[in-house]
């Protein structure tokens, strides 16, 4: 019991909205509903829902880098693509037996993280910040897109994996769980849904612990005033780099899940439109908080999906309008503004006890 309360306490803090029994009861109800959802739906719809879920990791990673750390990375899709292609190359070459797809997942995420560490080293130790960080990261993802786009020829292959240029790489095996009595192939269906949902819960709670830890304290300190943070004895470059790598790994996880979900990845997943979308999700939700980012991402993706079904040509335009409206009306995020509105009657009562709360 004691260990449990200590664990729960680490999930709460000034860096995250939502605390106390009411919030966690709500969390459990939501989780239970998410677990029960496949019972009231069909495999195809559930499989499509997983598609939404795959993007959330990238959104949470950007939330960490941008919302908490104050560095806008415009190129999270670079890590998404690198991990996606890595997963494809590995699994096409080595197959899916003996749970290798999950090893490939780890490797692919590690490759993305390693690339981020290299890029981030030059960015942060070179003291590149602000708008230049956005420009460089965007350039990187566009360069990767252009590069992959010209790999159509048969000479562009790694082992038996053809890169295939703009047509994209396909036919990699989906994630496959080794299971007594036969492997479970995680096609976009109920099983994959539960696996991704579990990952989501772990990542969300893990990030809550991270941002409420001393590390998270330093992270928001850097966002607020990097000079002051350094003059408290923190090597802020290391914190920025660490955050960048974690965010990139999460984008990589999204990339692997996406690739496994559709057994397909193309260079356009690293293109301009793809690079801009995570910024819309995170900004609309409320970048300074993990929960609002999560809710915001799901909401925006649901709207996007609905629009795509009922006349796709306007979906991206609506995304742009949403971003503009957010910047004009609720710069810290629509979901965050809504959360503050809902929380207002509760916080007024205990005004002084809730520093930094909504």
């Amino acid at each position, binding site marked *: 019991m004691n260990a449990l309360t200590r664990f729960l306490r680490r999930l709460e803090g000034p860096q995250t909205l939502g605390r106390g029994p009411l919030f966690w009861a709500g969390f459990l109800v939501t989780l239970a509903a998410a677990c029960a959802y496949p019972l009231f739906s069909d495999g195809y719809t559930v499989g499509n829902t997983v598609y939404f879920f795959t993007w959330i990791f990238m959104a949470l990673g950007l939330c960490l880098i941008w919302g908490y750390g104050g560095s806008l990375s415009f190129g999270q899709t670079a890590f998404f693509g690198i991990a996606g292609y890595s997963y494809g190359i590995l699994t096409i070459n080595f197959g899916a037996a003996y749970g290798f797809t999950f090893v490939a997942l780890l490797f692919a995420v590690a490759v993305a993280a390693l690339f981020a560490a290299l890029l981030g080293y030059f960015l942060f130790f070179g003291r590149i910040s602000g708008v230049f960080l956005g420009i460089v990261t965007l350039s990187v993802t566009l360069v990767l897109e252009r590069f992959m786009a010209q790999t159509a020829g048969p000479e562009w292959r790694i082992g038996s994996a053809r890169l295939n240029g703009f047509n994209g790489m396909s036919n990699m095996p989906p994630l496959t769980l080794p299971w007594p009595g036969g492997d479970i192939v995680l096609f976009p269906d109920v099983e994959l849904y539960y696996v991704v949902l579990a990952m989501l819960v772990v990542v969300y709670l893990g990030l809550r612990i991270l941002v409420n830890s*001393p590390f998270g304290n330093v992270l928001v300190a850097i966002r*607020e*005033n990097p000079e002051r943070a350094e003059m*408290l*004895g923190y090597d802020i470059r290391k914190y920025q780099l660490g955050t960048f790598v974690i965010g990139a790994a999460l984008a990589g996880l999204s990339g692997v899940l996406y690739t496994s979900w559709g057994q397909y990845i193309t260079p356009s997943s690293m293109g301009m439109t793809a690079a801009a979308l995570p910024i819309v999700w995170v900004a609309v939700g409320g970048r300074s908080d993990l929960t609002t980012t999560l809710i915001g991402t799901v909401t925006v993706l649901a709207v996007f999906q609905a629009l795509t079904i009922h006349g796709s040509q306007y979906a991206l335009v609506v995304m742009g309008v949403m971003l503009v409206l957010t910047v004009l009306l609720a710069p810290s995020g629509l979901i965050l503004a809504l959360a503050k509105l809902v929380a207002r009657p509760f916080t007024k009562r205990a005004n002084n006890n809730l*520093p*930094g709360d909504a």
Partner: protein
Amino acid sequence: MPLIETRALNKRFGGLHVTNNVDLALETGEVHCLIGPNGAGKSTLFRLILGEHLPSSGAILFAGEDITALKSFQRIRRGMSVKFQVPGIFKALSVRQNLEIAMQHHYEPAHLAEEIDKLLAFLNLSADAGRLAGNLSHGQKQWLEIGMAISLKPRLLLLDEPTAGMSPEETHATGEMIQRLNAEGMTVLAVEHDMAFVRQVAHKVTVLHLGKVFAQGSIDDIVANEDVAAIYLGQTTAHATAHQQPGGLHA
């Protein structure tokens, strides 16, 4: 051995020679004030000592160690701490969290909250612990930053105009706080315009003018020095400074 020492320190920005062969030494336990007209190079000297600027030539020694090439955070970890001129606090975070960020690596997690409470009481900010730092009054912001600076338990405390914008009462209270910290062994280097404050705390005063050390000595020596009065009075800004503070140089 001096705690902090600059040897023939020079800083040029293009053709501008902002710090010109400055030799400055502070013994442990000293409260040393740096004064001089605007543009004398006080802030640049501070930034050189902190490592925000690298000198064009010369050396900086901290407790005998050459720290000229060290990064700012490395100098802080060796026992320096700074309070900036414009309050360098984390405005969107609570007062308590500001102190927590400063102190979290200096205390055991179990004792951290208790130590923060102590410091809050010392700073007269206990009632404001939950407020956002950006919503504090100007004087309180200054105190909060002084609190963050001293929470590191530095051997050398650097204060850049610690009383700027404070009322005379707050200024005096700040002076008392510095005297208390000094009594506990902290060495202090302060840039300050308020001569009443300098008189209250300084053991030694260095006057900078056009990037050079112009005069050095006790506050009485400095006030009696007619050349010092001349460089202040020779500038329009000096009039304003002297006018604001009845206890100013030529009083």
